[in-house]
């Protein structure tokens, strides 16, 4: 399967060019593709599907939460819904979101390589991911799972209803997709850089993806084995965490969070990378403090492994371990603060324009700051006693995950959409949607901070009446937010057919993916192998191709 390396392509009119999307169009050419760009598209379709699965669940339980009584869903269904929401959103949407789509697409392009280091492995990850997700889907369709996405024992291993084994096995399999993706990226960044592409000329997105990959490789195997232990306990009766034998349910929590806390940085670091690219492009300026942003990504990845115990402050973890974990947690705030302030400083004396990706990026900075700062409440021991497992936590993580990562994903998707598809979406619709998403988001999740501090525990389908107004606001906001997301889901596909042709570099951005190849890129990325002679974001030093 070799793609035509047509040089004449360069001069052909845009609509007749051959590129990675159209050089072969059979289903087989897609399902057996080894091209990182096509694998990106496969992932994009799959994760969009799981976003919808999670969103449907969210829609259902937000309707339930409009009233204090359990009148729309039964308790069982409610529990299955939030589990499905959490599992789909975390394991099958957010974790692979940016790395497996934008990461796959951009890493080789940005470093000037023809492909990732192991293209076959790359395709294998998509299959692993899909198979894993089908197990989870099977569990959902066949009666669901009601453990919450955290699968705490002994509930999950002994008492839970539904197909815990299928769901955990799905997570287990999909975990290997994540591990192998990370492995592939690390090797790619180490070994496949174009001549002249030194470490400090790498775009910041690459630094972020690299840091993410480290977490994927070192963290994910632990969740895999943990899921396997649950399966062994539930399926084979091997009592690993069983308190009746003297087993320790808190051990499960340690193992689970050893992955799942670093995983939240899998879910945010690629977003940081996207934001750095977008801010640089729409300020036409090198990012302020490049080295600091680059190293803070690594710092977050590493420190992120030391803090998992902040999820266990009230779980009967020892008081001293709580102290250590709380103390270490605060150190994550510092590299994150460095990033935020550097982005803000990049605007200074820039040439700032407000296209859709930039609007999302600015929204990201604001909302992530709120989410991050509320993370500090939770890492403060005495306050977490009160806030643990309340809606405050729910609000915190939606601020960082939806307000943070999902907005970053949308930002990146809009930014590189012209590159990936060769088309430009409707800018007015996109700007409108971004404002709707921002408003809807805040309306949905801000009230949850208040109701959380009031003491409403999470995973409740019934709640005291006096909190109804806040929950109602939240549901109303969710419908606005959902409308915003649906708009995106409409106008982006629409642009595939009706959108204007983008040209190789619609934003006049710097970077190999913009300057050295067409939109969409040809199958092997570059007509001639690029040689890098300047730093990233050299907007000022004169641009070569515009």
């Amino acid at each position: 399967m070799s793609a035509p390396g047509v040089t004449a392509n360069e001069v052909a009119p845009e609509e007749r060019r051959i590129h990675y999307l159209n050089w072969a169009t059979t289903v087989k050419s897609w399902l057996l593709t080894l091209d990182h760009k096509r694998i990106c598209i496969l992932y994009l379709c799959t994760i969009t599907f799981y976003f919808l699965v999670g969103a449907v669940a969210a829609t259902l339980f937000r309707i339930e939460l409009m009233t204090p009584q359990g009148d729309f869903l039964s308790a069982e269904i409610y529990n299955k819904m939030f589990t499905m929401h959490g599992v789909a959103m975390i394991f099958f949407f957010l974790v692979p979101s940016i790395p497996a789509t934008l990461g796959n697409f951009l890493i080789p392009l940005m470093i000037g390589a023809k492909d990732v280091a192991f293209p076959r492995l790359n395709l294998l990850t998509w299959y692993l991911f899909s198979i894993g997700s089908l197990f989870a889907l099977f569990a959902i369709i066949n009666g669901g799972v009601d453990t919450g996405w955290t699968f705490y024992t002994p509930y999950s291993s002994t008492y839970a209803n539904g197909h815990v084994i299928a769901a955990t096995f799905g997570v287990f399999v999909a975990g290997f997709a994540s591990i192998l993706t990370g492995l592939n990226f690390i090797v790619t960044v180490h070994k496949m850089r174009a001549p002249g592409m030194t470490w400090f000329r790498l775009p910041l997105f690459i630094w972020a993806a690299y840091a993410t990959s480290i977490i994927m490789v070192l963290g994910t195997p632990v969740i895999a084995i943990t899921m396997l232990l649950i399966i062994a306990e539930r399926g084979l009766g091997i009592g690993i965490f069983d308190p009746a034998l003297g087993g320790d349910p808190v051990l499960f929590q340690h193992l689970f969070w050893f992955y799942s806390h670093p995983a939240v940085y899998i879910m945010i670091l690629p977003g940081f990378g996207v934001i750095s690219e977008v801010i640089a492009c729409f300020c036409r300026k090198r990012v302020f403090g490049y080295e600091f942003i680059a190293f803070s990504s690594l710092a977050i990845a590493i420190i992120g492994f030391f803090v998992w115990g902040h999820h266990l402050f009230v779980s009967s973890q020892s008081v001293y371990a709580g102290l250590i974990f709380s103390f270490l947690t605060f150190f994550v705030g510092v590299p994150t603060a460095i990033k935020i302030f550097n982005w803000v400083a990049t605007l200074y004396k820039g040439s700032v324009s407000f296209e859709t990706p930039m609007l999302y990026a600015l929204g990201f900075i604001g909302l992530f700051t709120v989410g991050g700062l509320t993370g500090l409440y939770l890492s403060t021991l005495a306050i977490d006693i009160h806030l643990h497992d309340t809606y405050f936590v729910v609000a915190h993580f939606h601020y960082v995950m939806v307000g943070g990562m999902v907005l970053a994903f949308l930002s990146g998707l809009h930014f590189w959409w012209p590159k990936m598809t060769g088309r430009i979406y409707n800018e007015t619709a996109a700007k409108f949607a971004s404002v709707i998403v921002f408003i809807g988001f805040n309306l949905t999740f801000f009230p949850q901070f208040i109701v959380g501090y009031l003491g409403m525990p999470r995973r409740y389908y019934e709640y005291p009446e006096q909190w109804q107004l806040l929950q109602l606001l939240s549901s109303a906001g969710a419908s606005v937010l959902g409308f915003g997301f649906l708009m995106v889901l409409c106008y982006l596909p629409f642009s595939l057919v009706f959108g204007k042709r983008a040209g190789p570099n619609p934003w006049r951005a710097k970077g190999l993916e913009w300057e050295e190849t067409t939109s969409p890129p040809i199958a092997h990325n570059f007509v001639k192998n690029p040689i890098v002679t300047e730093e990233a974001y050299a907007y000022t030093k004169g641009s070569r191709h515009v």
Partner: protein
Amino acid sequence: MSDTEHHVCPVGLYLAIFGALMVFTLLTVGAAYLNMGVMNNVVMLGIAIVKAALVISIFMHLKYNPKILWVVAIGAFVWLGIMLALTLSDVMSRGWIPNQPASWL
């Protein structure tokens, strides 16, 4: 660079390493029958670590490989250490603050 990466070791070296591994195996088994208290664990794990180091550096050629692979190998063990250390820090310090049920229970 090519030579360092594809270094061919003499058969004798492999045999010597195998011999050393056998000796260490004997030593651990022997040590297990002595009662040395906590030292049993230390000795046992110490020997296992030495054995692993031999396998990694010679059988797996790490010794002749570029430094980046050392970083990967050592990093992985360090990360395992983080997991063990912080998890055990909880398990060992539980109950350091009086946490007993009442006597009339």
